[in-house]
């Protein structure tokens, strides 16, 4: 809420916002080399994949043509701009356009000159073609660059998981918090409803849905969000149940604060620990589910860069092992990193691991 005063007398003491236990947890996490390294690697990979357009794309990053600057990554220029006669966006891979631009200027290509949906028509092998200098990880059975698809697919998976986790967090904490804080009948009815709800088969629902509508990212997200928050409810509810009888919560009630303020300001910050440890596992769960759906063909629309689809291609093209191996390595590295981070978090919050740092009471 309000920051404590900025007057010199009060600001003189620089408070440490972190309680000693939080600092000890951070120290435990930092001491865990595997978790710390995993976090750094994962963060680096994610940041790199965020600018995937600059790394793998079928259009140049910048170019100069007839003394003018263009940034095709950001802007769609019509073909007519570069001497063509079609009003459609220019195809920079087209030999005619290419020669035209080379004659009148220059282009700076990304290191991988293919986007995830670019079909390479100039392959020397029939697709799927093995790894070459041109396609570092080969192409899939439609002649698309696997490396580009992996980069975009990684980004899509992580963003999907991020949004899903954030959404589940909001819903789960809300539902669990209300059940736990009010208890009694609210809790009883809420628990039964969540039990029934969690009995619905999510996978079948998705499959049925796939036959009704064209599933896109938002549909999938929406449907999975309907169910993924259920795992959090129990954790949060238990924390709130415990906290509602704590004395500072009682004191807040005695002060006449309304329930929503008490929950937001007093209970929630202290209930976040259990929730926080749960997040990495929610995250991996989201990635796995998305991959599984794509593998089965009920996931993202065809053409999307998806790791699950790559797995499916690997299965269908056993003669092209680079597909399966790439999918396997990507998924296992990504999930292992997340599991290591999750383990580090869990250990950091585990009282048994920080016990040796605690001073015994007399």
């Amino acid at each position, binding site marked *: 809420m309000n920051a404590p005063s900025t007057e010199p007398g009060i600001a003189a003491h620089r408070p440490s916002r972190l309680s000693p236990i939080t600092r000890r947890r951070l120290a435990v996490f930092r001491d865990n080399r595997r978790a710390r390294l995993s976090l750094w690697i994962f963060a680096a990979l994610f940041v790199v994949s965020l600018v995937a357009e600059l790394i793998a794309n079928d259009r140049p990053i910048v170019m100069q043509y007839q003394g003018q600057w263009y940034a095709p990554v950001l802007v769609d220029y019509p073909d007519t701009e570069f001497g063509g006669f079609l009003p459609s966006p220019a195809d920079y891979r087209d030999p005619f356009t290419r020669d035209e631009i080379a004659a009148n200027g220059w282009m700076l290509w990304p290191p991988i000159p293919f986007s995830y949906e670019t079909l390479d028509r100039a392959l020397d092998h029939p697709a799927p073609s093995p790894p070459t200098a041109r396609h570092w990880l080969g192409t899939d059975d439609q002649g698309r660059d696997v490396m580009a698809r992996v980069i975009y697919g990684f980004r899509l998976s992580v963003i999907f998981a991020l949004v899903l986790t954030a959404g589940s967090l909001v819903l789960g904490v809300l539902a669990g918090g209300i059940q736990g804080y009010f208890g009694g009948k609210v809790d009883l009815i809420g628990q039964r409803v969540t039990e029934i709800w969690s009995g619905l088969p999510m996978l079948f629902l998705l499959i049925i849905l796939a036959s009704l509508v064209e599933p896109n990212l938002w549909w999938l997200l929406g449907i999975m969000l309907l169910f993924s928050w259920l795992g959090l409810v129990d954790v949060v509810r238990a924390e709130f149940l415990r906290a509602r009888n704590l004395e500072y919560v009682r004191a807040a009630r*005695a002060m006449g604060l309304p329930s929503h303020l008490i929950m937001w300001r*007093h209970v929630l910050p*202290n209930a976040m620990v259990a929730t926080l440890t749960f997040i990495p596992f929610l995250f991996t769960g989201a990635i796995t589910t998305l991959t599984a759906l794509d593998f089965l063909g009920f996931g993202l629309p065809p053409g999307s860069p998806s790791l699950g689809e790559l797995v499916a291609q690997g299965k269908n093209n056993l003669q092209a092992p680079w597909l399966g191996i790439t999918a396997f390595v990507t998924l296992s590295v990504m999930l292992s990193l997340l599991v290591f981070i999750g383990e580090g978090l869990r250990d950091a919050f585990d009282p048994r691991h920080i016990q040796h740092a605690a001073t015994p009471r007399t």
Partner: protein
Amino acid sequence: MPEPLLRLDDLTIAFDDVTVVDRLSLTVQRGETLALVGESGSGKSVSALGAMSLLPPNARIEGGRRLGDTDLATLSGRGWRGLRGSRVGFIFQEPMTSLNPLHPIGKQIGEALRLHQGLTGKAARRRTRELLEQVKLPRAEELLDAWPHQISGGQRQRVMIAMAIANEPELLIADEPTTALDVTVQQEILALLAELRDRHGMGMLFITHDLNLVRRHADRVCVMHHGQVQETGAVNEVFARPQSPHTRLLLDAEPRGRPLPIESRAPLLEARGVGVSFQRPKRLFSRRPPPFEAVKPLDLAVAPGETLGIVGESGSGKTTLALALLRLGQGSGEIEFDGARLDRLSGNDLRRQRRSLQVVFQDPYGSLSPRLPVFDIVSEGLRFHHPELALTEVERRVRDTLREVGLPEECASRYPHEFSGGQRQRIAVARAIILEPRLVVLDEPTSALDRSVQKQLVELLRDLQARRRLSYLFISHDLAVVRAMAHRILVLKDGEVMEQGDCRQVLEQPSSDYTRALVAAAGLAEVD
């Protein structure tokens, strides 16, 4: 002088270069009780645990330790296992957690017998029963198969004692064995320990913070402060002629004085027929059992500026009654506060009324949210009830209130974990009085604090009462504190009022047997 049973020479214990016990030397003879006394943090438990090498690995222990003719300093892991539980018995403070909830009592005692004497089967059972009888537990045969949650705190402590003496140890280390128990139960447990000590000729190291118990139950006393020995000597000697200033301070720490006289008797809070009962769960196909009456309907009244002490042991319904009066828990009956019927208010009306009806809880660690700075904690009610106040005005009031409860004003930006128990309790008091209430419910505000801190808090509360004409509802099991605070007393037992009346009169001429037992167990020092 005969060879002592336990001898510590210059025992020094450090955790990561922080010395917590500094050159402690003491001896315990067979058949005597040595009390190790000190406030929390003085290093008394660490000394005992360190002497038996029961500390975490980052503790460094130096100095000579001998038990009889065994040199403890050089003992190996196997040697220790043979010694602990067989030649040395332990009793810990918390009877609720020191028994394993997943094993029946007989099995837990039997484990010590099996490990050290190899007793199993019938023989172990017979011996376990004997032990339970020795610690005077009724129905010993049934208790063998009872679970820890089925017996009371006092009984659990007896079970712990039975475990500790199972192998007839030479030395018994009792670490605050009665702190979590009611006063009347305390006396029984300590009498039992003395009897067992005499019967088996054990030496006893009795760790406590309660000088009252030391006076009555120990032969010699060793006073510790900040890890250093202040004074060692016979109990009579030390109590009569304390040598060190710290011992004098401890002895003088009992809250003294009387509450200020009050002016009017017109009640501020009046409760008529207030009771609390809980519905018991209904079993399938059986009639619903009658509700459990936690507090039987009772009447009480508090005048402005008056303190009503509510006294009782654990489970007597003191806190339940207070929560019902505050409308924080369920309850029935009429509650009239400041001319308004509190029991009929709800929603926003009740919230507004809460300003003048505040509460301070027992646990100084649990009653402040660990994630808010003191400024937010203290000002929260003010900001909610008076949103019209400017930030500078709120800051001014927080500063004034903190100063009034004796805290430096710059503590506003710190977090609760940076304060000691006594300071936290002052923060809780500041949070209560900043709304300018008329009545404050104090639910055991002093019982988690050291005696000397208690005394200061009692003085603060009396000051505030005089300055602001506050009424208090003072809940406590500690008669010494109640005597220093309350004008009138209400004695509760099992939810029933045993006695109600003028404080001095109730304590000096109790009319019910129960009050008489309480007063006797408390062992109040004489005051004028």
